[in-house]
């Protein structure tokens, strides 16, 4: 379980973001991500989850409020500085389509290192190790179109983690996958992030995906509701018992 002591890795305070005339996506959202913490952000579609992720990852800037990363105000950096920071300190994974179709899995995973100036040989070597960790080394020479959705998503995770970022932002990473492929992706992400000490901000509408996180916050109408700590389970029930489900059978 990740700790929450000390300063958070990233903190968002009172974020407001309005898109066009459609109304506010965020209205005073506050959230903190601790170093090494896996935090799920859940909520109905249109609740502002993705917008929150985009603000925290420095992809967009909020209209109002502050995004603090270390000593820096992410929301006050120039576009160029934010891009640079994203390249070195953050990794991003989306629901689909983020791999470059013309490149092999290995070259896709090596790309962030190449952009950061690492030599091609070294970049490929390190990318190879990350493909291995995500169990897709066997697909290294395949192009995205030649892989299953789950494999492509694990290559995308390898690419997000190849620079050993402080935080990975994952927006519905299992949204396009069946439940078994989704489970493999989440298991790989959680194990690898914990091993590397990388914080993960996981946006999902799916409770089973959110359950991989250490903690969950829920967005409703653009504000963050802390999901209350569960009441002491030891007092209310025995948690090792099978849950009581509606009887679908009968004593024979």
């Amino acid at each position, binding site marked *: 379980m990740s700790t929450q002591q000390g300063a958070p890795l990233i903190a968002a305070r009172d974020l407001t973001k309005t898109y066009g005339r459609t109304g506010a996506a965020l209205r005073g959202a506050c959230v903190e991500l601790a170093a090494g913490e896996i935090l799920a952000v859940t909520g109905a579609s249109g609740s502002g989850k993705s917008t929150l992720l985009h603000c925290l990852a420095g992809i967009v800037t909020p209209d109002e409020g502050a995004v603090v990363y270390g000593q820096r105000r992410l929301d006050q950096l120039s576009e160029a500085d934010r891009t640079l920071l994203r390249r070195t300190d953050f990794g991003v994974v989306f629901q689909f389509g983020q791999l470059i179709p013309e490149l092999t899995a290995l070259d896709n995973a090596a790309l962030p290192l190449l952009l950061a100036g690492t030599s091609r040989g070294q970049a490929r070597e390190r990318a190879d190790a990350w493909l291995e960790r995500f169990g897709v080394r066997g697909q290294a020479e395949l192009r995205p179109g030649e892989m299953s959705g789950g494999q492509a998503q694990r290559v995308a995770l390898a690419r997000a983690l190849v620079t050993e970022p402080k935080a990975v932002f994952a927006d519905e990473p299992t949204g396009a996958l069946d439940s078994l492929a989704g489970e493999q992706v*989440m*298991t790989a992400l*959680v*194990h690898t992030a914990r091993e590397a000490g990388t914080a993960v901000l996981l946006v999902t509408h799916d*409770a*089973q995906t*959110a*359950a*991989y*996180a*250490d903690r*969950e916050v829920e967005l409703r109408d653009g504000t963050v509701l802390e*999901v*209350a*700590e*569960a*009441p002491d*389970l030891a007092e*209310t029930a025995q*948690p*090792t*018992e*099978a*849950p*009581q*489900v*509606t*009887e*679908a*059978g*009968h*004593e*024979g």
Partner: protein
Amino acid sequence: MSTRHVLLGLLATGPSHGYDLKRRHDARFPQARPLAYGQVYTTLQRLVRDGLAEVEGTDADGGPERTRYRATDEGARELADWLGRIAPPAPFVTNEIFAKVVVAILTATAGAPADPAAYLRDQRAAHKARMRELTAVKANPDADLATVLSADYALHHLDADLRWMTTTAGRLPALTQEIQHP
């Protein structure tokens, strides 16, 4: 849940003592309530009474004498029949969460100190905490297949409960309105 068919199924894989059956049951159903010895022996006696199992012999191995049971042909037929028979899909909608919400709405509209919205919020938090717990159990690289299967089963049901609770929380104003002004 039919303990007698589960035990019959375990016996079908080979003759067994009561103690071994309990041990094998608990290993195959790791998240279930462990089977009590007393229940195992009572069930075995009923299986013998009904001709579905029989005593094969006794072993001592230097310790106390233990009776070894095996399934009969009739037991094998009964087991096959049970395995192929579909379970009635939710014949009765009875569940503690569901009952509490209904009663909370009824009593709250009558002025009693009940807060269905607060209850749903707390119950959802408890469900989510349990889901994180089960997911950690399942994601452990050492988890065996029986553990993964039972965690999956519980997770899917908890998820279904959660969806129902979310929907119901959204319906509370309309439900309350309907009860107050039928």
